[in-house]
């Protein structure tokens, strides 16, 4: 004999309208939204920190600005991500000027000055220096002296912001 479903239980098992439970997902999204709003920056990332160095941390409040990018990593000194001089060799050099770096910086400076004459974009002599936190002072001061002597007197040292 075929199975006949009970008439009494027919209405019990009917689930009615099935709704997706979105409330917990909404909670999650709200938290993510608040977090993202907090980390939101108007400018986006002006400076891309290099991969092979750890910047020092500091309690400064000022925000990054655009400028010529000079990176001093363990192996190389780079100007706008183009390797210029080996960091190791700088230690051996006499005096405060790094010739290869100066040549490169002068190239950029003259290029920028040409732009200033042609299009009226102001050449501010801004340079952002990214250095590894374990960089010795002797190398740092040489890089800075070279920048100063190559028409880039406005130096910005890039650091990680520390709270407090």
């Amino acid at each position, binding site marked *: 004999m075929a199975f006949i479903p009970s008439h009494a239980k027919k209405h019990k098992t009917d689930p009615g309208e099935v709704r997706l439970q979105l409330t917990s997902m909404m909670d999650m999204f709200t938290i993510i939204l608040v977090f993202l709003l907090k980390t939101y920056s108007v400018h986006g990332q002006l400076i891309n*920190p290099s991969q092979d160095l750890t910047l*020092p941390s500091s309690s400064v409040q000022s925000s990054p600005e655009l400028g010529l990018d000079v990176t001093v990593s363990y192996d190389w000194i780079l100007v706008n991500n183009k390797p210029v001089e080996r960091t190791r060799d700088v230690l051996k050099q006499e005096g405060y000027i790094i010739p290869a770096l100066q040549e490169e910086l002068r190239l950029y400076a003259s290029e920028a000055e040409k732009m200033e004459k042609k299009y009226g974009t102001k050449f501010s002599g801004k340079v952002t220096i990214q250095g590894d936190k374990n960089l010795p002072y002797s190398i740092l001061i040489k890089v800075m002296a070279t920048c100063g002597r190559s028409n880039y007197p406005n130096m910005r040292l890039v650091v*990680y912001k520390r709270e407090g």
Partner: protein
Amino acid sequence: MAYRPSKRAKHGFEWIHTNITPMMNLMVVLIPLLLTSAEFVKLGVIQLNLPPAAVGPEGEKLNELPIEDIKRLDLTVTITNKGFFISSSMAVLSGEREGEPTIPLIMAQNDSMVHDYGSLSEKLYEIRKKAENRFPDYDRIIILAEPDIVYQTIVNTMDAARSIKINGKRQSLFPNVLLSAEVR
């Protein structure tokens, strides 16, 4: 006699669902938008502006400047492996004994010797209070270091020299930082 509600007239609750689907749509759009413009590492910059005249291509314009007879402070902090030396155009602040650093290293928690930035800030705060309005360069400090002092130490020293936190309030000390080339 007071009116008593009827026991029979019991209405079951109708479960009301808020329609959150449009809100979900909004979230789905907003979250990728904010993710792309989020800044996960906060970068800052320390400004160091050299006077352009002194660092011109020839570097000779400096000599054309008239010699000033105004007394200047020329406050200098020298970072060495033994600690900080504080000096000015007039004198060198000596430490406990002659020839010792003004602020020697202190013992850290892991038994290593580290620079004492807190004491440096306090000492500079004293100097700032005395020097205020008496010298034209009262907000300037020159930082010198031995060649093997690491970058992080210099940045920390700049932080200590820039401002001090007193009773939870941040006070400016010497925001105008200059780096000098050699230890004399």
